[in-house]
């Protein structure tokens, strides 16, 4: 067998900092590759040695359960050496800067860094400081590219397409990094996106991103093929952005009766779910919900991203 050197498409990226840098073709390439990785997860021995020569650092400056576990499992499924770093138990507590931390870690001969940080642009900053490949696992309210990729993968898996699909994203749009990456990715692939949520959680001029804004949940649910509910951070209530969880649920929560009234839409949620706030419990567990598929697909998409960025010789 020969590995082709030439072809019409060449994945050009060194990092995955955000979907803003990725063309429609690049996004589709990652999704297509993720199909192959999904197959690996169903093997009797779901492990391949593809990254056995790579050392990857997971640099988490913010709490995370599923993203961190998902990245770590993806890395281990591909045979990489994995080092976990969390700021709470590190020299960051002694006053070490992000730049010094990452440069010290790089001195230990690492190949890739997965970074989550509360500050927007942190992943871009790290990419300028070190030679390793950087994957953004969420930077403030800026981007969360792998979450958007797994959302797109899950939508395509369920509906068979993305182009022309009608998608409503419901909830706290202002503070969500998942929304930003999803808007970029989905619109680039030809989907129609509507944002729905309280006015206090809707950024001004968001229509500039090529989306429609609505505050009427039922009209959106009637219109859409896919409804993606976002987690409401309960601390936002203390900030006065919404009066109570119960009121939010009444206005913007997807309820069981909606499933009967609007039988066409698929339910998504990036997790973790506040049952009874964004979704009624029966909605979260309904056959039309693909929330657990999203978690499995997250593993495949992250494996694909790690594989593509672990790249061969750079031209």
């Amino acid at each position, binding site marked *: 067998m020969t590995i082709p050197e030439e072809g019409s498409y060449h994945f050009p990226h060194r990092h995955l900092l955000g979907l803003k840098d990725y063309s429609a073709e690049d996004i589709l390439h990652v999704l297509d590759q993720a199909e192959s990785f999904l197959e690996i997860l169903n093997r009797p021995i779901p492990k391949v040695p593809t990254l056995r020569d790579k050392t990857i650092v997971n640099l988490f400056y913010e709490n995370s359960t599923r993203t961190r576990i998902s990245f770590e499992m993806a890395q281990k499924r591909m045979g990489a050496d994995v080092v976990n770093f969390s700021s709470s138990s590190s020299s960051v507590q002694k006053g070490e800067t992000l730049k010094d931390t990452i440069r010290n870690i790089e001195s230990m001969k690492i190949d890739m860094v997965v970074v989550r940080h509360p500050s927007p642009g942190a992943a871009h900053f790290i990419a300028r400081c070190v030679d390793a490949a950087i994957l953004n696992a969420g930077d403030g309210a800026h981007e969360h590219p792998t979450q958007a990729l797994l959302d797109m993968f899950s939508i395509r898996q369920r509906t068979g397409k993305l182009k022309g699909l009608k998608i409503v994203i419901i909830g706290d749009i202002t503070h969500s990094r998942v929304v930003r990456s999803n808007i970029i990715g989905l619109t680039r692939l030809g989907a129609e996106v509507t944002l729905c949520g309280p006015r206090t959680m809707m950024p001004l001029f968001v229509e500039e991103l090529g989306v429609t804004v609505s505050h009427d949940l039922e009209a959106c649910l009637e219109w859409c093929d896919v409804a993606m509910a976002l987690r409401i951070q309960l601390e936002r209530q203390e900030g006065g952005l919404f009066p109570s969880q119960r009121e939010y649920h009444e206005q913007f929560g997807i309820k069981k009766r909606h499933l009967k009234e609007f039988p066409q839409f698929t339910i998504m949620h990036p997790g973790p779910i506040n049952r009874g706030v964004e979704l009624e419990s029966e909605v979260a567990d309904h056959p039309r919900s693909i929330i657990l598929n999203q978690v499995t697909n997250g593993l495949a998409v992250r494996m694909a991203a790690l594989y593509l960025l672990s790249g*061969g010789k750079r031209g």
Partner: protein
Amino acid sequence: MSDLKSQILLTGEDLDRTYMRLAHQFVEPFDKLDTLAIIGMQTRGVDIARRINSYIASFFSVDIPMGVLDTTFYRDDFRTRMRMPTVQITDIPFDLFGKDLVLVDDVLYTGRTVRSAMDALMSFGRPASVRFCCMVDRGHRELPVAADYVGLYVPTHLNEEIRVETMEQDGRNAVLVVKKEKELRT
């Protein structure tokens, strides 16, 4: 890298006769064919395996299970290339345990693909035996690998490339030798 000149080694008709011969060779060691299974290696190995399997079905009236294998994840040389190879689908829809497998590929060259294929197979189970079939053995082995079934032996130079073309991928069935400007090792 441009081609300097190419020469057809096997035409579609020659290939058909080779497929028929290989179909007979595949079944020869077995009294019963209930443990035989065929795995085609992406990309052209799959087309070749399908063709051989269709001849087995028509000659012996049996339905031999067939799978498809992509070995990209197991290769040890992809990082020396300009780009990451595109991963293709692996689909082995039967249990490997106790099966007598025949792995099918288009060209046997350095032996690295076969090594990675055997690594990959072990992720799926423990077959009773694994044999290897290639349409063309062009020499220049880098690992101690030999094929059990060979369509054609072609001693080659390092600046030559063997291309097995299939109807599904290339619109015709043929085997060509192509002279290149420089060495191409895989």
